[in-house]
């Protein structure tokens, strides 16, 4: 148990540090913080031009989806960076618990996603003058954290695909774009075709964004608990699928000796 905890905590911490190459924190600012705000401004003005929804809709939607960026890319990088530094094979032959290994890597990534989303929310609201009831702040923080966890679940699926496919950055972008389009972030779900809004119910972010919008509109935590439960359930489902796929692709890669070739 202590051994698994060590893999979870120390492994996760080292992996997180390696993710950014913490020689200089400016990377954190220019990769995650600034683009999260410029994205909000782009969609807020696009929304104004289209005459669909107000600034609050876009600030909340894009702030919450900002959690997905570090979660998707961060988790994918935990595999691709290992391959790049030629340590993936060592990792795969190690007896370390995969559950502890990946959850250890997921925990700081999820927290990171929540921090980025929180930053985007605060700055986006200040810049565009979106007011948030004081009573909504704590429930909003919880909503953002739950969304970060759900996105990390999808990030684990994304990471597992990195065992089979070298172009994980491409895949992360593809998933992110799909979230922007279909998760109710920028286009209201009722404007999307029925099949697309049905798919959206199985995506992380969809329920988190809806909960955040309800809170900003004056709803209470009790009102949004079902939505948060749905968001968490979606995230846990993806995490379970991701861990299963890690096992599956790892076994396939070992059989085919294709780990470094993917």
């Amino acid at each position, binding site marked *: 148990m202590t051994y698994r905890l060590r893999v979870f905590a120390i492994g996760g911490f080292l992996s997180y540090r390696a993710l950014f190459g913490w020689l200089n924190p400016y990377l954190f600012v220019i990769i995650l913080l600034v683009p999260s705000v410029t994205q909000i401004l782009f969609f807020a*003005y696009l929304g104004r031009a289209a005459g669909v929804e107000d600034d609050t809709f876009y600030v909340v939607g894009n702030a919450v989806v900002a959690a997905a960026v570090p979660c998707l890319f961060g988790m994918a990088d935990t595999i691709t960076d290992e391959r790049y530094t030629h340590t993936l094979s060592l990792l795969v032959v190690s007896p370390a618990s995969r559950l502890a290994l990946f959850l250890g890597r997921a925990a700081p990534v999820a927290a990171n996603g929540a921090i980025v989303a929180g930053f985007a929310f605060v700055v986006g609201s200040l810049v565009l003058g979106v007011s948030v009831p004081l009573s909504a702040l704590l429930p909003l923080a919880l909503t953002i954290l739950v969304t970060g966890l759900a996105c990390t679940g999808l990030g684990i699926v994304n990471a597992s695909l990195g065992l089979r496919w070298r172009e994980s950055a491409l895949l992360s972008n593809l998933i992110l774009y799909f979230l922007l389009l279909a998760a109710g972030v920028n286009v209201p779900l009722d404007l999307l075709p029925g099949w697309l809004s049905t798919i959206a119910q199985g995506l992380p972010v969809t329920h988190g964004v809806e909960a955040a919008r309800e809170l900003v509109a004056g709803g209470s935590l009790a009102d949004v608990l079902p939505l948060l439960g749905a968001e968490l359930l979606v995230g846990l489902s993806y995490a379970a699928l991701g861990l299963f796929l890690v096992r599956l692709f790892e076994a396939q890669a070992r059989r085919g000796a294709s780990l470094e070739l993917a």
Partner: protein
Amino acid sequence: MRLARSLLVGWSLHFKQESRNPFFLYILIGTPLIYATMAYFLFRGGKQGDGLAAAALGTGFMGIWSLTTTAAAAALAQRRRSGLLELLVAAPLPFWAILAPITIAISALGVYSLLTSMLYVRVLYGVSLEIDDWLAFAVAVPLGILAIGMLGFMLGAAFVRFRAAWAVGNLFEFPVWTICGLLIPIAVLPAWVEPVAWLFAPTWAMNALRDAALGASTPWDDVAMCATLSVVYGVLGVLLLRFFLGAARRRGTLALS
């Protein structure tokens, strides 16, 4: 003659090479598809015909800019990582003649983005782009791409000291999408934004293509601005390269940045 041949061979080589980069192709094809779809759903009901046709051009340019701002800005960092930068700097050819064909080739890949967006809205949404002035359109496309490529050249030169140049370049993605009128009419933005947008080639390239296609006004002044800005970016890029590379050579830090 030797210089012209180097420019042409460099451009052709990099155009072919980068055309096989799956990530670049994804940006060029994925960006217009996703943003044209969003524009369609958002503008549906309020904006039709010319509006969506302009959106098709706009999302095409978004793809071009998205690739240029990251890939061109990182062109030198990539050569540094592959161990080529010192060899290229030491070559007898002026260094600008090595970098400019790379960044122009990257932005030239944008023709894929433009074609994708125009075909997409034509096939899926039935919006065809009737070109009002074919001559102006045929001139505006390469000049617009050249101007964006030269802006990428200037960014690449400015970020030569940054190991994470792609990330620094990426900072410009959403701001330029927002202020240059690619998808959002400039009239919706604060008044102070417009003069800032004039500094960026995508503003003029988009105006030129929109006017040539839709015939709202003459595109030739915008085409002229694309040519002018190409020269200005080129001169600034050469000066920046001279300054940064000179400093890096003096300190022996070319490979260390």
